[in-house]
């Protein structure tokens, strides 16, 4: 661990279990799931009137470990450590930050790799299909358990942004401020296509075995390939030029074989291989499916109608070079909120880092979020002048 300055320091993953039968959580599909465990972490202090809580929502491959380190020797901080901590955008000196692993995940929350108490075996593909709405419904139980009636803010990028939108729509009285970043109100057909290719890669792996690979060889190559495809969609043409160019990997000349020649190939293989060590292939199937299904206008017919009863203030952020969740999709959200006369602020950040920009922030996004939160915290009396 390099430095403690600006860091939340050593953090601990905690667990909360609810929905014990017969009080299972009823999912959007109509199926029931329970008991459910959510892995979560908190940073900072909840204030006396419990008004300063911010729920951070993670993306496809994220988890509850949003900031800080697990031990003194831990080299890798949480996935959004650049914006969470003392003095940072999500300032732990001012706010109480919560982040939980989604249901369907594989980092401590109940998902396909969890043991089904009815059978004593992992759920695998008998795990019910979950939605972004289900993830959020599960989170409300954690928020209840933490004694928080109304969140000051919900915030997240990509799939985290979908949850931030879902929170504002499904629980208008429980969120003051919603910050959806690099996201959409419904996944584009292009997004669904990439997700499906990733799922096919996993399911075609000879080790997949209908999802029953626990205790044996895992569908390593399929999951790595899915991750490689995913990573291409998170970058931009420009950032690939800058990061890799056409540089060769550890050689002067091309090999004239089908080995890894280029830096970009090496990078993708590395990302694929390391992902397999920490992520469950079945979770990848379930979570990408939840992303595909996400459509906020489903059931109301239009996004304008969906937002009719929301009460939150919104800060919507997109990145110019993000072609997976392009700015026009963020603008659709902005327009629908605007037509309803809702309080929405929109910022399009001129980053070259593609979809990944929300994780790699160089301070632009941070400043916007920090100022926005402070303004609303003062408006709501959470911060005193």
């Amino acid at each position, binding site marked *: 661990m390099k430095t403690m300055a600006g860091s939340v320091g050593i953090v601990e993953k905690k667990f909360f279990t609810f929905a014990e039968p017969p009080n299972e959580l009823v999912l959007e599909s109509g199926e029931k799931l329970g008991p459910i465990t959510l892995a979560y972490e908190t940073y900072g202090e909840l204030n006396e009137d419990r008004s300063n809580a911010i729920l951070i929502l993670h993306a496809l491959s994220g988890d509850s470990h949003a900031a800080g380190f697990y031990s003194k020797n831990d080299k890798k901080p949480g996935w959004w450590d650049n914006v969470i901590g003392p003095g940072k955008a999500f300032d732990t000196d001012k706010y109480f930050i919560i982040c939980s692993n989604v249901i369907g995940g594989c980092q401590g929350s109940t998902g396909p790799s969890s043991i089904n108490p009815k059978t004593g075996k992992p759920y695998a593909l008998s795990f019910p299909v979950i939605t972004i709405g289900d993830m959020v419904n599960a989170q409300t139980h954690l928020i209840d358990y933490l004694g928080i009636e109304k969140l000051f803010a919900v915030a997240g990028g990509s799939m985290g942004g979908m949850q931030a939108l879902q929170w504002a729509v499904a629980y208008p009285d429980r969120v003051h401020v919603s910050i959806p970043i690099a996201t959409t109100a419904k996944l584009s057909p292009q997004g669904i296509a990439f997700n499906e290719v990733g799922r096919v890669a996993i399911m075609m792996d000879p080790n997949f075995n209908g999802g029953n690979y626990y205790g044996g060889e895992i569908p390593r190559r399929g999951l790595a390939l899915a991750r490689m495809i995913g990573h291409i969609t998170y970058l931009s043409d420009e950032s690939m030029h800058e990061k890799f160019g056409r540089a060769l990997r550890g050689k002067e000349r091309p090999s004239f074989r089908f080995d890894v020649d280029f830096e970009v190939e090496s990078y993708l293989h590395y990302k694929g291989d390391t992902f397999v060590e920490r992520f469950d292939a079945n979770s990848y199937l379930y979570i990408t499916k939840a992303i595909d299904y996400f459509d906020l206008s489903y059931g109301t017919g239009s996004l304008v109608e969906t937002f009719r009863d929301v009460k939150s203030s919104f800060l919507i952020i997109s990145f110019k070079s993000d072609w997976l969740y392009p700015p026009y999709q963020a603008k659709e959200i902005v*327009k629908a909120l605007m037509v309803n006369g809702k309080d929405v*602020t929109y910022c399009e*950040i001129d980053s070259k880092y593609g979809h990944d920009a929300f994780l790699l922030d160089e301070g*632009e996004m941070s*400043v916007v979020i920090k100022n926005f939160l402070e303004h609303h915290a003062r408006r709501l009396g959470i911060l005193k002048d």
Partner: protein
Amino acid sequence: MERTVRIDHNVIVRLIPEGSSVLDLGCGDGSLLKKLKDEKGIQGKGIEISEIGVKQCISKGLTVLQGDIDEGLRDYPDKSFDYVVLNQTLQVVKKPDLVLSEMLRVGKRGIVGFPNFAYWKIRLYLLFEGRMPKTRFLPYEWYNTPNIHLCSVKDFEIYCAEHGISIERRIYISTERGGRILRGVMPNLFAENAIYVIRKNG
């Protein structure tokens, strides 16, 4: 320029009644909106094309959308604001006619502020220098100016007459002697800056 811009802002703040709803097109760093909020308790929103401007607005606690007003305001319902402000922005938009008609559809009233290109110093500059005029308000060179649709007080009044727009108030400003509001004759010659309160007829 600094002082004159502040006079603009003071004039506009005086023109807008307490508690109005205001949309500021091309709101820049948000200083006018902030002043309107602080001094008149308005419900304000801004639209600004630059990321820098948007960030400055957010730091002032303003509600702002990053967007291009040349793309129109089609998503705003008719008469959804008491006032739509277009200050020092008319001359930089690509389609001033579209922007003016949209602002008067969306707002009950519009407030337009722009530099008068028929100001006497500009006329003399062109006459004697034979070069594109530069003033405190128009400090750019011909090749790098964002001002692509400059007009005079007379041009603007003719435009309004021809497009069914009625002018409710005219305020002319000069930066001479520290900046003041002009009262008197020949504004097309002596006004350096003009601010109009306008409304669509009918």
